[in-house]
């Protein structure tokens, strides 16, 4: 299962879901789906998020054994 730190890092930088979405060119809802783990983003979107949140992709997303 894909886990992520999007919510934690977004809070650290004080972004709202809408603000983060705007920076990576997606809707607020898509950020919410990613944070809830409902949706696994593409590599392109993952790279964009990692860039905005200033971390490596591997530190933002990782696989967890079920």
């Amino acid at each position, binding site marked *: 299962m894909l886990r992520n730190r999007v919510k934690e890092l977004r809070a650290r930088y004080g972004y709202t879901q809408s603000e983060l979405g705007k920076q990576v060119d997606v*809707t607020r*809802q898509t950020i919410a789906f990613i944070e809830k783990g409902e*949706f696994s*983003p593409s590599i392109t979107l993952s790279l964009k998020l990692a860039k905005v949140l200033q971390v490596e992709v591997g530190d933002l997303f990782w696989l967890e054994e079920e």
Partner: protein
Amino acid sequence: MKQDFRMTYPLWNMAFILILAVMAVGFTSSFVNVTKTEASLSIEAQALEGFLTFAALIAYLVLITIYLFALQSYNRKNPGKKISPFSMRPPEYMEQDEGMTFITRKAVQKVYTFITWTLPFFALIVMLFPIPRLFIVWGILAVAFGQNLIYYMEMRRHLKEAAE
């Protein structure tokens, strides 16, 4: 998102389908003759059928006028994502980014599953039993209603979760 016309579009469809269901009563003329064994009983219901057809036609015209005004208003407010009333592609698809495409696909998959089961089942029922024409039309409309309801409920569930 609640104001997004694409979100409420299935509700419009469902309203149109309900009106069509009433209209079907007049067009299929199923109430005209009711025959009982031994003594024959004939019920003339053309007046009722005519009234239902006329009322449904008026309701349809009123609804389509409101719908076109609502669509025009939406298109004015959202010039970047206009919806054409004559588009072949269902306008309720929300595919503005990969997350929205993902939930749209999930909703469409549920609808597809529903159609896959209901249509052959309905065809079988129609083949096996002498069902009046009105009920066949109602059955088809019920499938169309169900398809819109499933899509709407699924999209609403996802978007509600995203709002929490």
